[in-house]
Each structure stands twice: as structure tokens, then as C-alpha cells.
């Protein structure tokens, strides 16, 4: 049923910029301050106060625009969006309207691939209509019979990134959002924290019969605070709209809220109730003029972005494409990889450990790379220890788990737990002699030509030595003694 229809999705992302001060005054943007602590006459909207634009916010917006391949408007204009709400101090939000700071960008997302079938991955380009700068509102807290307003967040700088309606599924929406968040974090303009609201998303969803051009009527789903919920909300909304149409109904243009507990979207307000924001140019701010030099400087200041990193990992470091994609999907993960790689010079080994044990353990604990105790240099050391024969591969797994749990370096773990690999021929000799003495019949069979028994002897010796013997040395010595 659903397959006769296709979804058309556009996303509006509000990303909070990481400036120390607010966009139009000198108040701190610190998140967890006591209520109404970071408030001054300007962000409280006192009569007579005027906005003064924060230059850092402009720099950050420019970086975001360049990292999403946007064209920067050399002249953009702030506008007032007028509406009444107690947490909107001035009765209008200063935003940008018909002349935003940047337009016509795109992000390439990777969809379709899985760890099992990485070859199914393909690139899809999602257009970005515009990026504009604006201030955040405060926060209303509704109590029994009254409401409280906290203006700490009022005036926090935001950029709104509006995608083209190029997205066709919840999976693509998720991939776009993850990529966008990763890019903004790479360039250090947004901390990407969805719980604290630093990265928020509204989704415009409509459906149309496959093969048709005309857009269906859209519903806007507001402020969903995790990737998983965005995907689920979109999934739900697509199905809901298809069902409405198939049962002969009409989708109405409206704003809907996602209820994550019930996994449904519910109507918040219809188009008729939509407000007239009476946008007009903000007379208190001059048009924002960005010089060619400033754009060039911002370009030069951009760090290596995920795609460039992936290219380098695969071409120069020989990392498989799928693994490289996973590693570059997060700035923190990529940094971890690169630091560990620098410490040992073994990119493939690092990639294997990261992709294997590390992500497995994180997933098991439902933790993020941010929560990691382990130092990347420690992984580098561990890899060097394996190479030098100081630990065996199997013991290394135990050491890694301990590093992951405690954050300790591998040398002290090996020392404390006595996990060092034994290459000392004296100790191994002794163990071999004991094994030979205790298994006379197997020795006889081996000497009679049953070569397969070699594995048995090696296993017995390793067992006797608690797995710490260097298997190469054991093999060599056994062969000598049994010949």
C-alpha cells in the first residue's frame, strides 16, 4: 500500500551557536545557570534597549554556510518576526527573512549501506535552501495555575538551516540530520546536544503518488529531540497521511507534535490558526555586509571535513570505505582514530580495534564516544605491544576491555594482572617437557606421522602457561623437541 506513495520531506534545523555571549548583548550563553541569571536589559527587552550583533556569531554562521556548500550573500538583512509569547521579551524575534546570510547549499549523505553489506551504500545529495541567523526565545515553565519564564536562553544565537524537500524517507532524514550535526560539530560552531536543545529539528512531511511531480499537502512536525524520534515521527506521519488519502480523506496543512510515549503525531494547530508574523526589516540593525576577504578567511579557517577525511583515510591510510565512513561520521571518533594512529603508525590495526571492540563495547553499554574513558594514545600503545610480542592477540582483547572500563594504560594493566606474553624459552621448555611426559601415547602417535596432533600439544602448553606464552616460540620449541 505504502509503496504506491512516496514521501517528500524537508527539514528545518535550529542549531545553537557556541558563542560565549548572546547574539545581541554581552550576557553569557551558559546552559545551566540559575533561572534568569544571564539576563540584562537588552535580552529582557527593556524599553530603549538596542541589539548589537555579536561578530563571533556571524563568523560561526559563515563557517556553517561554507561547510554546507552554501553561497554567502554579501549583504543580508535582519528582520523582525512579530508574535506575542511571554518568553519572547520584545514581542518579536530578530531573525532573517527575505535576505538570509547564505543560500543554495547542499550536503551529500550516505544511505543504504549496512555493516554486512557495505557495498549497498550510495551517496545522495540533499539541497539546502538557506541558512539564516536569529535569536532564541526564553523558556516558559507551566505550573499549576501559573507559568514561569526563564530568559537565560533568550538571545542565544541560532542558525536555522532549511533543507530542500529532497528527502524521501525517514532513513534519509536521519542520515541528513546525523551528517549535518557531525559537520556543525567538526567546525566547532554547535555542540550538537539534542537533549539540551542545541540541535533541534522540525520536519515538513507530505506524500504523493509515486511518479507524480506535484507536492501533497504538508504537515509540519515540531521540535523532536532525538534522531530516533525524528525517524519514528516521520515514519508515523507518512503512514498516517497515506492512510488518510487511501481512505478517501484529505491531508490538511497543519502543525503536529510528536508524542514519543505513544509514537504518534497529534495536531497542534491548523493553517487557519497560523500566525501572521508581520515580518519587516529590523530598523535597529544595519544590513549585514560580508566582504569577499572575510569569506576567504573563513574558508581558510575551515578544518578538514568528514568527506575530505574519508578520502584521506581510504586513499592514504588504506582503511576500507565503510569503516572510514563510520569513523568520520563523528568528529570525536575521527579524532580518537587519528590520535591513536599517530601513536602507533598502524592505521588498519587502529581502525579494526575502533570498528570492532570499541564500538561493540560502546553499543553494549549504550554509551557515546563522548563518554569514553580510554585515551587514544593507550590504544596506540596496546597495538605496539601486540606488534612487539609483549602481549598476545587474545590477551590484548582482555587488556582492551580493561582499558575501556578503567581508562588505565595497557602497560599497567598487563603488569597488574600479570598478562605479559612469555617468550622466555626456559619457562616454555619446562612446560613442554611436562606436556611430553604426561602425554606419552600422543607423542608416539605424532612421531608415527599424525601431524595434526601438533595443535593439541600447542594448546596443552598454552593452557599450562595461562595463555601467556608466545605461540610462535611454543611452536618452534615443540617442533624441535618432538623431532
Amino acid at each position: 500500500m505504502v509503496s504506491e506513495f512516496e514521501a517528500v520531506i524537508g527539514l528545518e534545523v535550529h542549531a545553537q551557536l557556541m558563542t560565549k555571549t548572546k547574539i545581541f548583548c554581552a550576557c553569557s550563553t551558559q546552559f545551566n545557570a540559575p533561572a534568569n541569571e544571564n539576563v540584562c536589559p537588552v535580552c529582557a527587552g527593556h524599553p530603549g534597549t538596542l541589539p548589537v550583533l555579536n561578530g563571533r556569531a556571524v563568523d560561526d554562521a559563515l563557517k556553517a554556510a561554507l561547510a554546507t556548500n552554501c553561497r554567502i550573500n554579501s549583504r543580508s538583512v535582519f528582520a523582525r518576526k512579530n508574535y506575542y509569547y511571554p518568553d519572547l521579551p520584545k514581542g518579536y524575534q530578530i531573525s532573517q527573512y527575505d535576505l538570509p546570510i547564505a543560500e543554495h547549499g547542499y550536503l551529500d549523505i550516505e544511505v543504504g549501506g549496512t555493516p554486512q553489506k557495505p557495498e549497498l551504500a550510495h551517496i545522495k545529495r540533499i539541497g539546502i535552501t538557506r541558512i539564516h541567523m536569529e535569536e532564541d526565545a526564553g523558556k516558559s515553565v507551566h505550573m499549576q495555575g501559573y507559568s514561569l519564564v526563564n530568559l537565560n536562553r533568550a538571545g542565544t544565537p541560532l542558525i536555522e538551516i532549511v533543507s530542500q524537500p529532497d528527502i524521501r524517507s525517514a532513513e534519509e532524514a536521519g542520515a541528513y540530520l546525523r551528517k549535518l550535526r557531525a559537520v556543525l560539530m567538526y567546525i566547532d560552531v554547535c555542540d550538537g546536544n539534542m537533549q539540551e536543545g542545541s540541535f533541534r529539528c522540525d520536519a515538513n512531511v507530505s506524500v504523493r503518488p509515486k511518479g507524480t511531480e506535484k507536492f501533497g499537502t504538508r504537515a509540519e512536525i515540531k521540535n523532536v529531540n532525538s534522531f530516533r524520534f525524528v525517524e519514528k515521527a516521520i515514519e508515523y506521519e507518512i503512514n498516517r497521511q497515506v492512510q488518510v488519502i487511501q481512505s478517501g480523506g484529505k491531508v490538511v496543512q497543519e502543525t503536529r507534535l510528536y508524542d514519543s510515549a505513544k509514537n504518534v503525531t497529534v495536531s497542534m494547530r491548523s493553517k487557519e490558526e497560523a500566525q501572521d508574523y508581520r515580518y519587516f526589516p529590523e530598523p535597529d540593525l544595519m544590513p549585514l555586509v560580508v566582504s569577499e576577504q572575510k569569506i576567504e578567511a573563513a574558508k581558510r579557517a575551515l578544518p578538514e571535513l568528514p568527506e575530505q577525511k574519508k578520502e584521506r583515510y581510504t586513499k592514504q591510510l588504506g582503511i576500507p570505505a565503510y569503516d572510514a565512513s563510520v569513523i568520520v561520521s563523528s568528529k570525536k571518533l575521527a579524532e580518537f582514530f587519528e590520535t591513536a594512529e599517530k601513536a602507533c603508525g598502524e592505521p588498519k590495526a587502529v581502525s579494526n580495534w575502533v570498528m570492532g571492540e570499541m564500538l561493540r563495547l560502546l553499543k553494549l553499554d549504550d554509551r557515546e564516544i563522548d563518554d569514553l574513558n580510554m585515551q587514544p594514545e593507550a590504544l596506540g600503545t596496546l597495538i605496539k605491544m601486540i606488534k612487539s610480542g609483549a602481549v598476545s592477540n587474545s590477551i590484548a582483547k582482555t587488556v582492551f576491555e580493561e582499558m575501556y572500563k578503567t581508562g588505565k594504560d595497557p602497560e599497567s594493566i598487563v603488569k597488574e594482572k600479570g598478562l605479559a606474553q612469555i617468550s622466555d624459552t626456559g619457562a616454555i621448555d619446562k612446560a613442554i617437557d611436562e606436556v611430553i611426559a604426561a602425554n606419552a601415547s600422543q607423542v608416539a602417535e605424532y612421531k608415527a606421522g599424525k601431524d595434526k596432533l601438533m595443535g593439541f600439544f600447542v594448546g596443552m602448553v598454552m593452557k599450562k602457561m595461562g595463555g601467556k606464552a608466545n605461540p610462535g616460540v611454543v611452536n618452534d620449541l615443540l617442533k624441535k623437541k618432538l623431532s
Partner: protein
Amino acid sequence: MILQLHEKLKTKKISAVELTQHYLKRVKTDSNNVYITVCDREAVAAAEKADQALAQGKAGLLTGIPVGIKDIFCTAGVKTTCASKILGDYVPPYDATCVARLKRNGAVLLGKLNMDEFAMGGSNENSAFGPVKNPIDPRYVPGGSSGGSAAAVAGGLAVAALGTDTGGSIRLPASYTGTVGLKPTYGRVSRNGLVAFGSSLDQAGPMTTTVSDAAIVLESISGHDPFDSTSSVLPSENFLASMVTESSRKLKIGLPKEYFVDGLQREVAEQIDSLKNKLLAAGHQLIPITLPHTEYSVAIYYIVAVSEASSNLSRFDGVRFGTRIGGDRSLVEMYKSTRSLFGPEVKRRIILGAFALSSGYYDAYYKKACQVRALVKRDFEDAFKKVDAILAPVAPTTAFKLGEKTADPLTMYLNDIFTIPANLAGIPAISVPIGRDQNKLPIGAQFIGPHFSEARLLALGKLVEEKHYREEVRHGF
């Protein structure tokens, strides 16, 4: 007047405290409803400080000079009402930049002056605290919206005052009360702390008894302010000195035909004609010019100003400051009851502005008005290629009687017809007294100049004072 007082203060003929008390005494017996708030104690304390500075030889021209401030400027710790019930008890946490600069220069703030509510009006009859009467003849209005500022200076209740001019609110009351009023170039004086009416038009300026006083006050309050992004980067200047430099120039003075029309009161026309002769005698040239889009100015103004006002006044919602009424039942109920505190003229303009910006009408009203505003600006740019300044009446008539025009807002709006264009173009203009009519009511004329030509306008004002007419100063000493 400031120069003479400064001399007396410096030579100890009078102390700053005595001077302040002289004015405070006059303020106490005022019957024209000029002040909303009087700061007796603060004023005396400031005067004592001024006396110390004088004793230490650290006094500037404004040290110890008692001034009044239109109640639209925020004053830290002193009620700032904008003559509105909605801000009836509002005490700002900060000083407007202008106010801070005057204080820094040693001026003594006597108090806050009455005005039209939120500066909306041309007669000062729209104040929640009652109308101001014209000290020249209390049956007449003082003009608005800076009516209290004009009346304070004309009636000897302050040496000088600050006013604001969005569409003529300094110049019109100056001309109705026989005082000097200067509307500086947009951006010359910081708007920080000035409760906004029409943000792209508002400009603060001095209202004084003499042109030199206007120069002294302007020097104090002008110059770049990092808290106002629209303030000019130009530093302030010594206008007393630059005024003298400018006065030696022989100027081409434009006479726009659109400003000399039927309906101009006979005596206004006569006095301007007489002034023209003095200008010629002083070696200046008079050149007929045209400002063809003048007729649209009032219409543009009443779209742009009210649109901006409708948004600027949204913050008066009872949530964070000012008066709050209701809120027990619902948010909308609180908004409605709180915002019904606005007076009828303010409500009328908020509704007009919200309409002009609303979807479906924006292009026809706000956008169109902005486009025509650009044409008005160009009129002046073209004119200033031919002339150095423009001479025009301030208003078609002298002051009218209290209550005479209140029933007809449209007639009242048309009163601003000659003052509005300078605000639309962002250029400076000075209003100076040029005589009296048969009812002994003051007549004003204005000189309008290109951006940042205040010194030239002051020089022309000075010439009027010296060669044509000078109002008698009646401050009681």
C-alpha cells in the same frame, strides 16, 4: 544662556546649588503641567558635586547647568513613563546614553518632562498625565510630542532640555514656544535608552533658549555609541567652534516651492519673507528649488512610523516590567487588559501599523511607503547638489488652542507636513524663532541641511538670532 551661566558659576557669582534651587522653586509653582517627575534631591546632590568640580577648576560648560529630560529617555533609578499608564511605575535599570553623557559633563537633571504618550502626537494633549500648556499663553498647546521640553525651556523651568523628533516632535514645539530645537542627523545621537517609537526616524536633540546652547548640548550628547548599531561612527565635535567657522561661508539657500503654499498663515509667510531679506543682506543667495515628493511625506510617515511602532510597543505586555493587569484567567486576558492601558492615539497607531505590516497588505503599504521614502530622500540629495541648506516654515500656523484639533486626528497629522520630510531623509534640521503673530504667539522657521551639516544649520540659526529676531528669555534672574 549656558555660556553666561557658566561664567557666573566659574566666577562664583552664583553656586550650582543656588542655580538648581532657583529652577526647582520655579518648577514647584508651575501651572502648565510641564514635569511628570521632579528629582529634587538628586538634582541638589548633583549640583553639590558640580560646585565641587567648579571649585577644583574641573568644570565644563555644562557643569551645574540644570536641564530637563523628556520622559522618553531612560534614567537609572528614576521613573520613566513615556507619559503612559502602561509605564506608570517603570523605573529603568540604566541611563540612556544621552542622559549618561549629560551627567558625565556635569549637567544637573531636574526631572522628567511631560510629552505625548510614546511621543505620538503634535500638541502634547495625548499624555496620560494631562496636557501641557504653552507658557507663552496657557490657552494654547505647546506643540508635541516634546511639549514638556519646549514648555520647560520657554517657561524657565530648565536651562535646556532634551527632546526627541520622529516627525517634527522637537521642531514643532520649539516653534510654538519660541525656543530653539535641533533635530540632528539620524545616527548623530545614540538612540540607546530612548524608548522607541519609529526606530528608523527617531532622533534625540537639544531644545534651548539660544542657538549656542543647542550647540553646547549637541556636543555633549552626540558621537558614536557602541550600544546603538545605527549610530554614526563620526566623533562628536565642538559645535560652538565649527558653527563659527561655518558662519563665514556664503551659502546657497534653497526655497522649496512645495513648502510655500496656500494655507500658510499670513504672518508666518511675512516673517519668512523678512528673514529672506536678512539672509540676502548677509551675502547668502536664495535659490528656488523643488522637492517633488513632498506631498507623499505625511502618508509615508504614517505608514512607516506606525508600522515600526506597532512592533516596538509589543514589549509592553505586562510580563517583565511596567504595569500588569489580570492574568488570572488566561494569557490573552492579561495581554488585553494590560494593553488597554494605552491611550486612544497609541492604540490607533498600533492598529494602523499592524495592519500595514500584515500579510496581503505589506506590499501595498509598508513596502510601497519605503520605496517612496527613498524618492523623498533623493529629492533632498538632488536639492543639496544645488544648495547648501533649505529654508522652510516649521508649521503652516502658529500654536492652536487646547482641544481645538483633538477631535480630528487627520488635521493634527497634517500639521507635521513640513517637518516629516527631514525625518524620512535622516537629515538634520533646526527650528528657530523668527517673530510673533498678532496673538503674540511665536513663529518658527527651519533650516534643513544635508547629513551631518549641524554646524552649518547652527550658524544659520545664529544669524537669525543676531540679524533678525531673538526671543526674550524669561527665567527669572
